């Protein structure tokens, strides 16, 4: 893992996981790969951060999990968004866009 990897901002990981699951159910490794993909390799989520976050979000009621078959027929635990999770995705997206726009404006100002 590269030393100069971009650090995840506080709260960003939750949003990325919600977003990654927005298109459908995935298992842990799949989520990590999907995040890497949709951020074009900027964020690589390590299992040590990913799994605690998944369990925490499941406990919060945003995700639900079930056991299924992976692409090469391995038993794996899959996660998907619950109704509350979809709502949370909307809320956090909106919040992030506000922060992002504000930061962009702030950095543009002279």
């Amino acid at each position, binding site marked *: 893992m590269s030393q100069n990897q971009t650090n995840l901002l506080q709260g960003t990981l939750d949003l990325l996981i919600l977003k990654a699951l927005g298109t459908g159910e995935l298992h842990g490794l799949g989520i990590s790969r999907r995040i890497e993909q949709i951020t074009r390799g900027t964020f690589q989520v390590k299992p040590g951060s990913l*799994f605690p976050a998944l*369990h*925490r979000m499941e*406990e919060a*009621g945003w995700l639900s999990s079930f056991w299924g078959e992976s692409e090469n027929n*391995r038993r*794996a*635990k899959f996660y998907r968004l619950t109704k509350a999770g979809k709502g949370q995705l909307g809320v956090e997206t909106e919040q992030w866009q506000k922060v992002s726009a504000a930061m962009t404006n702030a950095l543009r100002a002279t």
Partner: protein
Amino acid sequence: MKLRSQLSHGLKNIFRKKQVEVQLDDEVRSCVEILTDQKIAAGMSAGEARRTALVEFGGVEQVKQAVRDHRAGAGIELLWQDLRLGARQLLHNPGFTATAIVTLALSIGANTAIFSIVNALMLKSLPYAHPERMGVLFMRVVGSDPFDRQTALDGEQWELLRDNAPSLISALSGGTSGVNLQAGPHVQYVHDARISAHYLDVLAIAPVLGRNFTDEEDRPRGPNTAILSNGLWRNTFGADPSLIGQTIRLKGEPFTVIGVLPEGAVTPSNADVFTALKPSREGAGEGSNFDAIVRLRGGATWQQADAEIDRAWAAREAGFASKNPGSRLTFYSVPLQKGQTQELRPKVLALMLAAGFILLIACANLAGLALVRMLRRTPEMATRMALGASRWQIQRQLWIENLLLALLGGLAGVGAGFAALRGLLSLLPEDYLPVASVTLDARVLAFTLAVSLCTSILFGMLPALATRRLDLRSSLASRTVAGGDRLRLRQSLIAGEVALTVVLLAASGLLIRTLIHLETLPPGFTSAGVMTAKASLDDARYRDPAAFRKLLDETTAAMRQIPGVENAAVGLTLPYERTLNDGFTLRDGPNAGKQIGADELYVTPGYFDTLKIQLLQGRVFTAEDGPTTQPVVVVNRSFARKFYPGESPVGHTLDKGAVIVGVVNDVQLSSGLNPIAPLQSEETVYIPATQFDSKLLAVVHTWFQPSWVVRTSAPVEGLTQQMQRALSSADASLPFSGFYSMSGLMDKTLAMQRIEVALLGAMAGLALLLSAVGIFALVANMVVQRTREIGIRIALGSSVHQAMVHAGAPGARASAAGLVTGLILCAGALRVMRSVLYGVGVYDAATLAAVVLVLVSVTLVATTVPTLRIARIDPATTLREE
């Protein structure tokens, strides 16, 4: 929604842990396998693929731990883990744990017991409605002879208060005394409280049957009425509801029952029957013989009430000021609880302070023990820190262990306190505490919990501070830890506890000396072989002096007939008891015309012979001294010395022409005149029972129950029954209230001193025990820690004796420092005891010498015993170790 989901998951995580763990393990493992599959697909060999996958994954156990740390309920889980670890640690170390719990149980138990008394006396509200609106009256004198105490009222003051203090409902109590109650054929000795009309209104007690006294019934020569306690109504009258309006025979007269108190009603006197006081300016009202109790009326304030009291009694205050220039007298009201407990409060608070000392001593001991234990566990902690435990986790673990220990100790302390309290209450004389019951209520338990938590902080602070400076590398490297500064610290703790112990020992020593002094005072009579019995003559039949004289003659004659009885007599009061006080005028002699106060009692002619009170001059009374002959009196030695210094009082006259015919030796009594000690002898005038003022007789008998005294040459079988029979032969309806030996009377008078000695002695003993344990532990620990060093010393030629002295010295030095500090503390602290010491000074050399001796011997034992191990140290084995 979110919270509910988290809660249900949290409960699942805690209670279905196994299932949750299996699922976590499955999930993580499948992820690693998928990753491995991908590596193999990319062309790696199976072994290499798995290794790379594991590295990339970042450690299966670490990921699982990260999940566990973030899961719902993780905090509780951790706490539970720490608690279990703590409990295991305590079980691993049974010696330490048992010592700590016993120490805590004793010290917390002492505090619980004393605090429950403080609670009952001062904190719990009184069992009356709106007790904060109730009060008693105090008198304060400022000036050369200051005074501030509850005041008794005379008849004039009462009338002024009743008529001029509209803010108050005022009532009087004339005291409680034994009277004879005739119910059917039986005569019973019961306690009668004489109360004024609105007394029960002030207490806010309404009779469950009938009514309270009316103003009419409380006037002099008003109708005779009585209110019964619920207990008497049930036990003697079978709870008969038609008793109201009926007549009972009380004090030899008919009384109409007008009321019955509710069950469980508490009054300050706890009497069986209540009769109207009928206060006036005559009889008992001529002197200050009434106790007032008041209740503030709705809307009024205490300031208004005090102003009214001040105005009502302005003439008395002015009279006092003119007679005592420079002094000022004021009267004021004091809340009932404060007024009732005024005498006891300083004593109880002193005991609370002593109990606090015990707690500090216990904490110092435990802090020392916990410190040693902590130091011994340094390698373990260093290992845990090396494995990634944070300082916070280690600290948390330590605090949880302390808390666990303190709570266990507190629990044991409640048990010990309960036992101590029961023992303490059985020591106290009846009706000693002005409260009905002392219980371990919620407030006491809360106090115990708070004390337990405080102790855990007090004794846990030291080890916790010590770990803050724990150096990982050096702790792991060396197996022995013995910092010089830690020894210094432990020594100061020991010195501190020894100092407190010295103060407690000296204080209880002084009380013991006081008790010995009082018990060994020359009594002035011979108490062995004397039996006494009291009967109530507060009876209509004995207001007639002739009937009274006849009763005394017949009963003493009958008692002299009992085989084995040498002599029998009657006296208004006995030695050791409180006497009647009266005023006299000296007609002639060196102090002619002077008005004096003295103790006064009537006696039958045999009184001095029966008690063997020595006659010093003149004669004692004879059967010839009758109601119509020349009035005579006998005085005691103190009276003779004080009023007729250097000459014989025999032949001099007091008022009403009474001639002094004899002087007898002083006896010890409980003073009502000028109480400076619990037992003392003071100026006394003896009057023949036949010549006692007939008007005064009835009043005196409402206050005192006279005593019959017999002297036997050897123990007589069934003496008390024969005495009762002798009394009944003269009056079949006159019961004795009880029989007392003279030593029993002395014990009753000195009960307070005994309790003080027992309580403070127990506390001092406990403190001494704890200090000894502390010194012992310090030295024992030194021996264990320095086994190697001692081995080397012995190998280099030191004798076992020298090595023992070397190991024991730190304990002895700490104790010596504590002794010196304690003696310095005594110089200041013991002065507050002056008011409870008699016959011994505050700086009593014998007491202090005894304290030093006790402490030195205990220190010697506590330092020597643990060093005996040294004799068994074999230098060769010790040096080969490690």
